[in-house]
């Protein structure tokens, strides 16, 4: 990171978010992909679950497929595992075309949403099941099972049956079982969905540590954007069977490529506007709801007079009484309409714009001190300010 920072300083250029150190295989076009979906389509009758999708995933990557229910993410994973066959298109794993290979011969293992533990076997036997199918020597099976029990901190539960375990322990058994065969890629289907919030957060970090230790490629399917952003090196946002954006969590959050992604990941203000001036240094937009303009350092291929959306995250909008910050490029007068006090932050909804075309702009206000002298409250006149690089211009 130090290297990256130094480089950033020399060029006086800001970069987006943290990236795992020296691990960006997707940026070099020559790097061979480990998993490749090539023009894959899957239809169930009339319904198209996955539509002509191409995707490259690299070795040792922790990759997340993110999307709402029915977006095709689980179907995509099940095709990789072999439980569904693509209608058209090819899937490659480590250079091998997977067509016609049944699930029990594929070098991938899957952790199921329901865990799918074998109820009539002990934890040990559950973990050893896959190894026995490979006809490994009993001593080696014993060693591997012990290693997996250690990795998932399940040593004292080895002799128990699944129904004698808590949800978190079952989740770890399922993980240990799917990792025991040292698969080329581990598929995780909503692995933490059944856990409560605290346990889920802990387990996310455990998953990341295990992935770092084993250096296995992980592919996770989830509908939980926080989970995807926490664990993944890269995220693919899916909608209606297609990829909308594939990028690092920080890029997805800070530079979404469409209104769908901006809205799906986190909270966002989408301001409808028209382009009034373009230059290499940036763009000036006029808000449709009249009364304010937006100065941005973003360039756009939209022409003068075109309709665009300016997406800005609430935490990038600063809110203050009176004059606000004189050096901010954008300053908009507003009237406080609603306040949601969440403890760590307050989300303040302010009315901006003129007449009947006004709109609500959300700003996050960090509650950094317990006592405030002159707190912002309902019906206050405020100034909302943000920098030239605070938001992005979206066309679709």
């Amino acid at each position, binding site marked *: 990171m130090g290297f990256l920072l130094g480089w950033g300083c020399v060029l006086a250029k800001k970069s987006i978010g943290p990236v795992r150190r020296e691990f960006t295989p997707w940026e070099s076009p020559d790097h061979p992909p480990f998993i490749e979906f090539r023009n894959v389509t899957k239809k169930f009758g009339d319904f198209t679950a996955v539509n002509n999708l191409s995707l490259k995933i690299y070795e040792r990557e922790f990759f997340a497929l993110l999307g709402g229910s029915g977006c095709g993410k689980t179907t995509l994973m099940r095709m990789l595992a072999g439980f569904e066959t693509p209608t058209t298109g090819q899937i490659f794993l480590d250079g091998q075309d997977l067509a016609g290979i049944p699930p029990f011969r594929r070098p991938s293992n899957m952790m*199921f949403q329901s865990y799918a533990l*074998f*109820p*009539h076997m002990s934890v040990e036997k559950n973990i050893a*099941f896959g190894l026995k199918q490979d006809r490994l020597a009993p001593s080696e099976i014993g060693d591997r099972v012990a290693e997996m029990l250690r990795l998932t901190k399940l040593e004292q539960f080895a002799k128990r049956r699944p129904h004698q375990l808590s949800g978190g322990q079952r*989740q770890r058994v399922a993980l240990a*079982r*799917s990792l025991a*065969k040292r698969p080329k890629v581990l598929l995780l289907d909503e692995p933490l969905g059944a856990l409560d919030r605290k346990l889920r957060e802990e387990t996310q970090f455990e998953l990341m540590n295990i992935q770092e230790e084993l250096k296995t490629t992980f592919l996770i399917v989830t509908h939980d954007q926080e989970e995807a952003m926490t664990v993944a090196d890269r995220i693919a946002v899916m909608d209606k069977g297609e990829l909308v954006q594939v990028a690092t969590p920080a890029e997805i959050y800070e530079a979404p490529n469409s209104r769908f992604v901006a809205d799906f990941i986190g909270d966002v203000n989408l301001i409808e506007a028209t382009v009034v001036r373009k230059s290499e240094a940036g763009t000036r937009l006029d808000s449709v709801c009249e009364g304010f303009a937006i100065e941005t350092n973003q360039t756009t291929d939209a022409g003068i007079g075109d309709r665009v959306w300016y997406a800005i995250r609430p935490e990038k909008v600063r809110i203050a009484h009176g004059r606000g910050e004189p050096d901010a490029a954008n300053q908009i007068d507003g009237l406080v309409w609603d306040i949601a006090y969440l403890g760590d932050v307050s989300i303040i909804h302010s009315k901006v714009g003129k007449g009947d075309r006004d709109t609500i702009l959300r700003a996050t206000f960090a509650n950094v001190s317990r006592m405030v002298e002159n707190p912002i409250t309902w019906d206050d006149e405020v100034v909302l300010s943000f920098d030239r690089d605070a938001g992005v211009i979206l066309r679709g």
Partner: protein
Amino acid sequence: MTRGPTWFNITSLVMGFSFLYLPIVLLVIYSFNKSRLVTVWGGFSTEWYVSLLHNDQLLDAAWVTLRVAFVSASVATVLGTAAALVLVRSGRFIGRSLFSGMIFAPLVMPEVILGLSLLLLFVAMDQSRGFWTVILAHTTFAMCYVAVVVQSRLVGFDKSIEEAAEDLGCPPVKTFFLITLPIILPGVVAGWMLAFTLSLDDLVVASFTTGPGATTLPMKIYSQVRLGVTPEINAVCTILVVLVTCAVIAASLVTRRQQVQKERDERTAFGAEG
């Protein structure tokens, strides 16, 4: 409002149970009668049980019945389990509801009709009737009961457990024997016991489909009773009652265990806090 038993409740309870069990109790008591006359009590004795051991005809009939029950229950269990698997697993296929309706039809079909139709079939096939035709007939109707019992077990079965086994390198057929069968085994065993019991005490279907040399115990008893009830028959019936009671209790115990196990499995499947 009084919660305790009233005279009316007690009377109806006693009458109801007497109606059900008095004949059977009388039969059991008279099987220990010393007197040769069935209706006159002549003191306690077990001589009829002893003489039963020397009645080759009855023993033969009992042996035939046990063999028929064992073979037909086993075949019915295999076929019934397969039918249940198809019904629960295959999703939608053309004729699915017709098939599932047809497999339950023999449950409500009058036995006389079932027996008669099987007899007509065997005659049409020019098949000499005997041991194997009785087995075939019993398999036919017992299979439906097995299918019903196993199906109830399969409905709560999480399909992803089998997928997990395949994902871990286990081919489908091996998965069935290593994973699916052990999990549904209580249902299969209960189905087998039910089929065994049904075959053991069937008179109607057996009489239609049997031939010379393959007389089952219920048929033997029925034909002897027509010549007059002997205390020996009482003794045989007592043994049958005990056998059937044991089988029914065992089957219900297995089913109850299966119920408890199923609830556990469901909790496992959904990964809830246990």
